[in-house]
């Protein structure tokens, strides 16, 4: 399954780590964004098959960005990235239209499973 993915996280380290996991599976990371504003803008330009979206970010939170993306593209497949202990945010993301979630620290197997499932729908 070939997939075009956009990775959104304010930490370069996290973007690289996710890129590593995704590329291992043969998926293509078509773009990266480091904050919510950039995420919305790049989503429009790149139209990725799937987006991973960090929640706590500067300028615009991942949840706000997610809502805006969904507003412009009802079928957008966004998987939010959150951290242990922030389950409430994951719930909020679900209400905003996220299709799945992955928790930091990432378990590469789990990340790939979630992406496959969300992308396959």
């Amino acid at each position: 399954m070939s997939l075009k993915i956009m990775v959104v996280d304010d930490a370069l380290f996290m973007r690289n780590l996710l890129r590593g996991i995704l590329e291992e599976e043969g998926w293509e990371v078509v773009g990266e964004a480091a904050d919510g504003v950039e995420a919305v803008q790049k989503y429009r330009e790149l139209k990725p098959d799937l987006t991973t979206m960090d929640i706590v970010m500067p300028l615009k939170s991942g949840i706000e960005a997610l809502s805006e993306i969904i507003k412009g593209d009802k079928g957008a497949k966004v998987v939010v990235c959150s951290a242990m202990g922030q389950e409430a945010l994951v719930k909020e993301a679900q209400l905003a239209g996220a299709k799945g979630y992955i928790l930091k620290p990432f378990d590469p197997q789990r990340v790939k499973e979630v992406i496959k499932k969300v992308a396959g729908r």
Partner: protein
Amino acid sequence: MDMSQYKEMFISEAREHLRVISDNIVALEQDTADREQIDSLFRKAHSIKGMAASMGYDAVAELAHKMEDFMDQIRKGTHAFGSAAADLMLEGTDQLSLMLKDVESGGNGGLDSGDLLQRLISQLPAATAQIFELPGGGVFEDAGETAAVEPPLVLSAMAPARSEPVKEKLETQQTVRVKTELLDHLINITGALVTNKQRLKDIGGELGSARLDDAIADLAKDLRQLHNEVLKVRMMPLAAITERFPRVVRDLAKKTGKDVVFEMEGKNIEFDRGIIEELSDPLIHILRNAVDHGLETAAERRAAGKDETGRIKLVALREKDQVFLTISDDGRGMDPAKLIASAVAKEFIRPEEASAISPRDAFMLTCIPGFSTASEITDVSGRGVGMDAVQSTIKSLGGSLTIESQLGEGTRIILKLPLTNAIINILLVKCQSLIVGVPVTNVLRTLEIDRSLITKRGKRKVFYLEDEIVPLLSLGRILGQVPKPLTGKYVPTLVTEMKGLKVGLVVDGFMGQQEAFVKPLGRPLTRLKGVNGGAILGDGRVIFLLDVSNLV
């Protein structure tokens, strides 16, 4: 998954986050309600937590997590950001730095944080009960329907405030890492080329071939470009050393019980690596002086009708190929009369010289080694390095230092620095059979003094430069040559500054100015006082470069 490939990136990004955190804390102390800073602080702690957890550095992640939770309380308004909070967060920042060092040297950051964690936890509400636990990832069955059924939980408690945007994006542009050694090689090779160009120019002069001269002129143009590019690669922003400064000022202010606001401007201005590495200590010394001696206590300031909070500012400004670094305070200022009296009492100057000293030169007296008295030395400013050390470092970099001060209003120290000191313009000076180079930046002017205008003051020869009395020294004598009486009607002299005072150096002649590639001297020549390096002239001759400020 092999995580070691991410380690270096983890360390450098975590360090960058810590630096921002430290800035945030210091800024918050000055404006405790600054929402941007609070949000940024929270996000950075959050990021470090996530990154450290991913790398499996549990102790790092745990500490960052508690700092994040603590900041979340402040975000929510449960806690105010007072100085206790600042101390606690700074302590956490320091501990995280130590942990990163441990990671860097092969550990996992698992250092003992003492009771720091407990103290952070004690600031958190007792029940931070998890609402529910989730596995490491999952897929939502159908977002739309769920939304309709379940009410939103803890909405936007963690969402960043929608206030002014914060610009702190990390550059994602393509970069490569190179060893600093390689950068040194590059400048060495460029320097050798510059030397060779000079040689060709000399030969061209002898041959009188217009075609050769043209070719050399083109070569010189290309070389200049190469030189510029190589220098660009070696450039580092001032920010590389200033990150500690807010913290230094803050800690010292705290220790001396003073209220201080510290501001910096122009942190992005870039210098050659060789310069930036030498600037940190002098700047810290000046900042410490400003807090410790420059600023008054809150009570003194109140009595003087000033705002109780003192201000210190570090501003960098670039002008062509020079940078002006100005450190100013709005403290008590210096009294030139007192400085002069003190210099006379300590026999640095003779009483009869005192009246001739301008206020500007009086301030420079503070740069005389041993000028500051024991009573002025407090445990914070310390002994050892004084303004004399600061000045000689700045001079050895080819820069200069001036002091301006207004009694009751404050002091300003201005450092004028070159952007680079690897390839510089030098003035070639003849001194009997010896040729030496003096960095052009250290030459105030060159003149030929009419011998009849040289007079004596006590045992010393002096001359008038405009209205100023300037002592004359023989460069030959300083360099250990056999003294020889002044003949000729005109005496070639170069005016420079030594220990803050103008001095005329008598030489045998000037041989023009040229570009030179400065090479550091090897041992044991490094111990020679007043000599800063060497350079090779176009004809292959090796010359010494004088560090005039340290000649005597």
